[in-house]
């Protein structure tokens, strides 16, 4: 088993762990953390694939590496946006879970 395969398998486990967290945690902040774990797992998987494609004197496939850098930045902006939304929710209410009050008996109308 090569190092790249090992990393690929580890990435699969990370993704599995993150997916568990995404489903099981009720707290949005923990979901955001889990999202980041899944994200890094996907990136690590890509890194393993890039390492497999090492040739022409490069340590890995540079196209995949470049894509990853873009992906990491995009994932960060998603995290920042979700966190900002969560904090804004916190500033207007105490209840920060995603579970909604039953919609059909909703008292306050939309704007």
């Amino acid at each position: 088993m090569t190092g790249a395969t090992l990393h690929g398998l580890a990435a699969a486990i990370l993704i599995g762990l993150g997916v568990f967290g995404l489903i099981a945690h009720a707290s949005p902040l923990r979901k955001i953390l889990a999202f980041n774990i899944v994200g890094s797992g996907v990136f690590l998987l890509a890194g393993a694939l890039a390492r497999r494609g090492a040739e022409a004197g490069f340590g890995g496939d540079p196209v995949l590496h470049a894509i990853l850098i873009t992906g990491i930045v995009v994932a960060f902006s998603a995290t920042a946006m979700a966190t900002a939304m969560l904090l804004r929710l916190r500033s207007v209410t105490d209840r920060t879970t995603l579970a909604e009050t039953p919609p059909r008996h909703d008292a306050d109308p939309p704007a």
Partner: protein
Amino acid sequence: MTETPAGLLIVLAVLLPFVGMMLALMAGGRNTPRVAAITIVCVVVTVAAIGLQVAHAPLVYQLGGWAPPLGVALRADGPAAGMMAVVTVVVAAIALYARRDFAVPEGLVEARAPLAFWLLLLAVWGSLNLIFVSGDLFTLYVGLELLTFAGVPLVCLDGRAETLRAALRYLLFALMGSLLYLLGTVLIFGVYGTLDIELLSRVIQPSLVTRTVLALMTAGLLAKTALFPLHIWLPPAHAGAPAAASAILSGLVIKGSWFLIVRLWFDVMPGVVTFGTAQLLGAMGAAAIVVGSIVALRQQRLKLLVAYSTVAQIGYLFLMFPLAFDASAGAMSGGNVLTAGLLQAASHATAKASMFMAAGLFYKALGHDRIAELGGAARALPITTLTFAMAGLALMGVVPSGAYLAKKLLLAAAADQGQWWWTVVLQGGAAFTAGYTVLVLRRLLASPMAPEREIARVSRLSECTALALALASLLLGFVAAVPGIGLPSGLISNPLAPSELLTICLVTGGGCLLAWGFAQRPSSVRPAKAAFVGVLVEDFDGLLRQWPAASLSLFAFAAAMGWLLQSGTAA
């Protein structure tokens, strides 16, 4: 594959909205809507030019002169150009509609919500154009994220806790979808060493990895499209947003991820798809129609009704998948069925946007949108009432709407392939649509409840825009006459033929029955027998829209699809 000279137009169509967004941010204050207006005019011209070019041949552009697989290519084919045209019409209409709502209030230099709205509208547009024309799976991922980032803040422009919660749900669920899509992209690169759609379509073979990829990517995109049972975020988000924002979200945003599924199934890996998976997608569509419509009939608020009708209409968009599966070739094939699907998307985009606009106008005029108390609205807002009726008719698929044409093509395909069950779904779906349209119209036309309330004035421009959009949807069927579309001639030969009229009468009658059966009524009246089923369906829907259930459905769907892909080939 080779580049076309007019290809630069595609780059313009993608980048102009973003450039406009940035300049509008720089301009700030009262200048933001003006810059947005100029941008809209520029993009409309660009898209029109693209349409004229694509009528002859698809456009291709290699960015930076680098050919795939190293570089990124943009391609505008027929479906892409068609979708771009539809989006252009809807965006322009929404901009006109929202001119008054999102003007900077007197006395302020700049206000938050208007600035955000105009910037996000342009961003949604640019992202959609990117998704329609991009030929590279990773660029498409960036486009998807752009679309999500532009769409989510529209939900919570008013900053109330409920809309913030809806927006956060939407964002987190959509992000889960993005990760699945990205995972698929990475795996595909690991097998084929390219991300270019056209290059991939030539080499992709069914294998463990490609099947996993198709299952993961489709599941991820469905989460963003909110196909039942993955509609966890849609009703609160679409119902809570301001009317113009709801029109963007419902009419446009969900079409982006839907279109990407179409690309994936028809262009990237048509040969990986199996009969079973196509049926599964269609079955989920059918379930969406039934559940979405019944829950819509039971709503007490107009905007939630329209939001649930979107859940149902999204189901409609997936009925073409089983009918487009060519069993003899064992692959997806486009043709008339694909055209029908695109027509359906087009008519839904226009009709649903105008329906949300109408709902927003009622809300503004009456100060509420409780369906039971809509009485007298028709007298106060005749144009908007007409808009609502026409949008409903267009969604039902009455001659000569785009949905009619689409339905006719799909019915023909279903008859052709002997898949009679889709005929039932198609006609039943139309009856449901008729049901909630009739339900609302009856209330609108009812005499006002005493005492007469103050009715606020609404913008005439907004009313007329909504009407025009509904009219566009109702007349969309005439595109069949355009030679470039490639539809068989004579599809709308005689709109007043007895058989057509009979179908319409049957569908409307069925709709009235359904409305009578499922709708909620004052507690003094004895509920109909069917209401019992309605309550059950409603509770079922509420259960599915809990986070754990929805995320489990997401992965369960991926698993089911992977299994069907695997077993379909073994047989």
